């Protein structure tokens, strides 16, 4: 274990996260973990890490980093200016850096959260089986808090087995999501849709605006007020809450709960499907959101397609040389593009 990254400037809110901490919600510990699992997994894939390696989740404004030891990096997720010793680099591809190099990131122009993966992973201590930072209770990640100037992050050891030496890799264009400002987020009615029999249709036919109150605990929306049925109480007996639950408090403005919450006390009209939480996490304050109702069965079909798409991507040769020769034509073909878009964004 050695220091690999020195934080010169932390950005707006940068934390160390992995795929989450499971099994402790019955003790009041939320899963935490990366909010956009798709972008984070692809960043890890680019640098040769397993999917569960810890990386940086960067919110809105990126950090500046001095490199302390030779390593491989990749940035995915929100579109953000990325400079390597002053030279522009693109996201969604891996690149090698040397001690003394400077990496500077700008402000997100599209999307809200970017992921910086480091070959070998960020080797902060495991706390209850995960490296994810839970800032709310001050543990996990790097010292249980967002990064600060002067922090030094250790690099894990990458077990390459019999893999060939590192080559520059890139994610084929069709696998790169296009972040918009108008989002369609798929959701399943319930758990308490019976409290909203008169407003469920309104909910699924309305457009909401993302308020400035967004963080890893939740997204507060504004716009059409959603009303409970007459006589139904807004407060319910507090119950376990899962990521994606859409609470309706007294004022009628929906709050989407994310991965740093274990208990909710308001009735939930619907729940965002797990495959769309990553998309939601890329929405910025001021963006518009519409909810599209799907059944549990439809959500499971989407879930299986996402899983098989990721599995297929892992088997592709992502080295830049391979696209240059034969791959490019296929990746850019209409058939391939429409297939991937279909998996990513439609049923």
């Amino acid at each position, binding site marked *: 274990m050695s220091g690999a990254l020195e934080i010169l400037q932390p950005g707006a809110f940068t934390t160390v996260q992995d795929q989450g901490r*499971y*099994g*402790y*919600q*019955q*003790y*009041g*510990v939320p899963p935490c973990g990366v909010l956009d699992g798709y972008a984070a997994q692809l960043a890890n894939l680019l640098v040769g890490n397993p999917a569960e390696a810890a990386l940086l989740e960067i919110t809105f404004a990126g950090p500046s980093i001095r490199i302390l030891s030779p390593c491989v990096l990749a940035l995915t997720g929100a579109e953000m200016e990325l400079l390597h010793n002053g030279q522009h680099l693109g996201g969604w591809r891996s690149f090698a850096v040397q001690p003394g190099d400077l990496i500077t990131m700008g402000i997100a122009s599209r999307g809200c959260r970017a992921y910086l993966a480091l070959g070998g992973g960020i080797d902060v201590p495991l*706390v*209850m089986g995960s490296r994810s930072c839970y800032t*709310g*209770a*001050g*543990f*996990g990640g790097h010292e249980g808090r967002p990064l600060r100037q002067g922090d030094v992050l250790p690099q894990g050891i990458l077990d390459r087995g019999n893999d060939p030496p590192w080559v520059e890799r890139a994610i084929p264009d069709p696998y790169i999501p296009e972040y918009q400002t108008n989002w369609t987020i798929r959701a*399943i*009615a*319930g*758990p*308490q*849709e*019976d409290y909203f029999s008169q407003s469920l249709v309104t909910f699924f036919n309305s457009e909401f605006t993302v308020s400035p109150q967004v963080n890893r605990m939740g997204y507060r929306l504004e716009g059409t007020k959603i009303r409970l049925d007459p006589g139904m109480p807004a407060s319910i*007996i*507090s*119950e*376990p809450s*899962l*990521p*994606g*639950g859409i609470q309706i408090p007294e004022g009628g403005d929906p709050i989407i709960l994310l991965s740093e919450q*274990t*208990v909710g006390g308001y009735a*939930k009209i619907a*729940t*965002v*499907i*797990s*495959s769309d939480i990553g998309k939601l996490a890329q929405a910025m304050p001021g963006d518009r959101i519409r909810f599209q109702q799907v059944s*549990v069965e439809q*959500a*499971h079909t*989407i*879930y*299986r397609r996402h*899983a098989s798409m990721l599995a297929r991507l892992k088997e592709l040769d992502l080295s830049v040389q391979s696209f240059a020769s034969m791959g490019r034509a296929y990746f850019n073909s209409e058939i391939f593009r429409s297939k991937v878009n279909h998996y990513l964004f439609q049923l």
Partner: protein
Amino acid sequence: MSRPSPQGGLYPEPIFRPAGDRGMLMELGTGIDPEINQKIRGLSLVLERTRLQGVVEIIPGYRSLAVIYDPLQTKPETLRQALLALYDELEHTALPEARVVELPVCYGGEFGEDLARVAAHNRLSPAEVVAIHSAPLYPVYMIGFTPGFPYLGGLSEKIHTPRLATPRTLVPAGSVGIANSQTGIYPIASPGGWQLIGRCPCPLFDPGHDRPFLLKAGDLLRFSPISRDEYLRLRGEQRK
């Protein structure tokens, strides 16, 4: 889906509510009710012993059990049938006695700044508030809000007290408080509006420990009064 019956208590049949594509809530009844919670506790214990295919995590609540599953390994209908079968067998399943956890609490003074206010609000002496608060065995219905925070039942009506008009920005870890009909203990320092009546010197949550949590849903909790000296002595032992 049928509406919960207004009279409270156990439903004739549990209600299943979808909570997204990876979770469901099995709701056993309505109201905060020891009988419902006994069933939740029983079902949680049985589910820990009987690993159902595809179940990732179970989270007990006051009157419902959240079940998180892997959609690649099971279907909601399969899960529903399996959960109902376990629920129906509960009456014939032997369950261990609930664990009783005793927590030492130094009431009043610098550790319980609001004890006098709670006493005045209820026309009692501070000593009477302490006697009433430390008498019952409180059932731990659910853990949540912050890591290790117990939602307790059974606070005597004689000492119900409204929340503070202005919440404190920082309540120290171990603080024991009252808010309306609830009592509880803060495992980590956090903002809070509860009336603070005492403090416990033992940590309820230690992320670095191999058993990070003192309490679990289904436990019974009793507060036992200790002196300031005893508090400081126990606190010192924790530090070592």
